[in-house]
């Protein structure tokens, strides 16, 4: 792995690759290598470009270089009783903050009510990006409100490194909730979807939710997060069984990192992103529902066409998150775009990476 420790070195490597038309595969810890369509190109490692550039807890912003370990950022934030509210998954020991942004993945708290709500993109304030000509560009900044120019930095969340090398990122951080309590309620899938949506319309501080089980009966886990008083009154209102803190922490960690038993095995793992109110999706295999109904994981051997048809009928889209033993050969990992969006996407890619050297084929085969 090359250890580029400066923007000059990155720029030189990128200009050289652009000149020779050599594809580059940008990687931090490589913990999300499994994710996306395909990995091609010469490795451009970011781990040498590491460090928190600025963190002032009272400004609610942290700025770090792309290669900074996520664990290091989380430790600094925890020391100030703050956090990245979107709970990005590590998926391994070496996860970096650049990879967090590029992958655009958020954890169980993504669909929380109120203050903690939002994905990676919702918490991005600014990004320094190196384009396909080796030029460092800054978009956004370190302030909460900023409408100068187009909001390019948020577009980088989930772009899988195809628009450029993320050099540095500024993220909004939030205080950790004072009160946390996990409840376990027995109910079937239909009831869980209905209840989660009903509670979503009430001032109840639900920070995370997960349902799993058989269609007829199952377990709904709820994590209440907020002011002590609000958590206490909501717990009384919602009922169910209180889960001991250490057991609850293990459970939510297992979902975030996909180390929970549900994710084990070699069956393909599909992620269905649906309107939270979508009725139960009928596919073979086992299911786990998160985000108040808006994220549904399926371990299934159903064909991509079958999964996509189900997701589309429910008003959403499906991603082959982990291919398992079946592999990705001939399967579109991400739902194909409409022709008009394909056209815009192609031109955006061209705008930032005119020679097409960054992670080609990682998001869609044609870019």
């Amino acid at each position: 792995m090359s250890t580029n420790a400066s923007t000059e070195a990155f720029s030189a490597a990128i200009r050289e690759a652009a000149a020779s038309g050599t594809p580059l595969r940008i990687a931090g810890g490589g913990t999300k290598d499994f994710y996306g369509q395909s990995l091609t190109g010469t490795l451009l490692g970011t781990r040498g470009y590491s460090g928190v550039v600025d963190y002032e807890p009272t400004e609610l912003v942290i700025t770090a270089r792309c290669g900074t370990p996520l664990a290091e950022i989380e430790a600094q934030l925890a020391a100030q009783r703050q956090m990245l509210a979107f709970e990005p998954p590590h998926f391994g020991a070496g996860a970096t903050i650049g990879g967090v942004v590029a992958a655009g993945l958020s954890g169980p708290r993504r669909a929380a009510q109120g203050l903690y709500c939002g994905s990676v993109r919702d918490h991005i304030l600014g990004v320094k990006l190196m384009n396909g000509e080796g030029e460092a560009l800054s978009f956004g900044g370190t302030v909460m409100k900023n409408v100068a120019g187009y909001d390019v930095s948020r577009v980088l969340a989930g772009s899988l490194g195809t628009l450029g090398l993320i050099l540095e990122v500024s993220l909004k951080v939030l205080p950790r909730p004072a009160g946390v309590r996990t409840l376990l309620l027995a109910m079937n899938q239909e009831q869980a979807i209905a209840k989660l949506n009903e509670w979503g319309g009430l001032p109840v501080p639900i920070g995370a939710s997960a349902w799993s089980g058989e269609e007829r009966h199952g377990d709904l886990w709820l994590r209440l997060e907020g002011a002590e008083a609000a958590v206490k009154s909501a717990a009384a209102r919602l009922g169910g069984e209180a889960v001991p803190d250490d057991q609850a922490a293990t459970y939510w960690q297992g979902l975030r990192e996909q180390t929970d038993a549900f994710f084990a095995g070699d069956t393909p793992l599909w992620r269905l992103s649906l309107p939270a109110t979508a009725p139960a999706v009928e596919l073979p295999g086992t299911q786990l529902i998160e985000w108040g109904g808006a994220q549904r994981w399926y371990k299934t051997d159903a064909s991509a066409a079958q999964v996509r048809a189900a997701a589309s009928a429910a008003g959403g889209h499906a991603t082959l998150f982990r291919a398992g033993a079946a592999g990705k050969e001939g399967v579109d990992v991400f739902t194909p775009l409409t022709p008009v969006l394909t056209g815009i996407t192609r031109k955006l890619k061209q705008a930032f990476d005119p020679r097409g050297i960054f992670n080609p084929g990682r998001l869609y085969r044609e870019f």
Partner: protein
Amino acid sequence: MNAPSDKPIIDLARQQAVVARLRAFMPAAQVLFAAEDTLPYECDGLSAYRQVPMVVALPNTEEQVSRILSICYEMQVPVVPRGAGTGLSGGALPMGDGVLLSLAKFNQIVAIDHAARTARVQPGVRNLAISEAVAHLGLYYAPDPSSQIACSIGGNVAENSGGVHCLKYGLTVHNVLKVKGYTITGEAVEFGSAALDSPGYDLLALIIGSEGMLAVTTEVTVKLVPKPERQQVILASFDNVEKAGNAVAAVIAAGIIPAGLEMMDKPATAAVEEYVHAGYDLDAEAILLCESDGTPEEVAEEIARMEAVLSKSGATRFSVSASEPERLKAWSGRKAAFPAVGRISPDYYCMDGTIPRKSLGEILLFIAAMEKKYGLRCPNVFHAGDGNLHPLILFNANDPDELHRTEQFAGEVLEKCVALGGTITGEHGVGIEKINQMCIQFSAGELAAFRAVKIAFDERGLLNPGKNIPSLHRCAEFGGMHVHDGQLPHPELPRF
């Protein structure tokens, strides 16, 4: 401010050609061109900039929008979309050779989905009308710009509008799930979805705040959130502005994110008190409004914690609203700051820079120095929680020298915001107003990237051209090219 100096004279033959094409499928009342009909559209909320459009089109169906766009694309006529016309940066300033595309007739709430907590609305629906329409469900639309009784959701999408509660509840970009619209070629397009994310690049994030330059919005799906059971506000006085700034930092350091956190300085407080008689402390150098919302228990807990922090931070006086009328009274002055200032001066000019909060003392000292330098007064209201400043320069537009000094004053303040690590605009947008300051905030390479984004959506540059993103030529004329590390990117390239 960067008032356009050369107003093009309308080309009558071209005007007739465009009108003929549009009237082929729209009634005459929806295609305006006579001066007395088009004059009301000559400016938006920034009245210092005026330009009568060549043609005004008022479509009322999506098909009409699509046809107008494809005709303008074919004839290479620029199109300026317009919502309620309340924007403060001239984002909807018409073009003398262009079509002003008013979405005012798109004023229907299409559907409210109670279970999903979403509303599908047309772009001409007013911001507050959404919250009013869903109030009986215990829900509301969170972003609340002060102009919310008049501004439309289409304009909010174009500007990524904020409001006084956005530190806790987010901006427009955090509260919109999907935007439906048309590209400049007249093709239907959807950004986002009814789910929480969509495949491919997050183009929804790019559309929001794009000032109508990438696509024309015809429907917006917004998120609705539960109305808090209780809201309470603390009014705290400080004998020094810096102490008030430090108190804001102390509240955040205590792990509290207030629902609203606003500041007014002494001159602003005096102006609003005269206007609304809310009983503000006129001796205070700065007043903070700290709002808490949530369940009754939650609010009681948070108010007690905030009181302790504010007291420790040296508040000289504070009061907590004991009832909803008292709370609204406390807010009345802040919400009416602009009209109140309008009463004490023939004209005022509102700035919108954002700074890191820690630089509050420094920027206020700077503004005080600018008041002396330019001989103009400048009361300040400030979204203290998120660092967004609204200094209001008082001037008389009939005095050309005062107008000129105001422009210089505002330009210097915005440049100072950038130097402090902030931005020239937090929520009002660049439009035409701050286009020169874009050259200060961004490098040539960054501006080139913005132009490339624009081209990805609008190859011919017909959709609201000349706003938001300055040309290199414009920056060269302005003389304020942003230079990184003493060097322009690609110094080998000719720039002018």
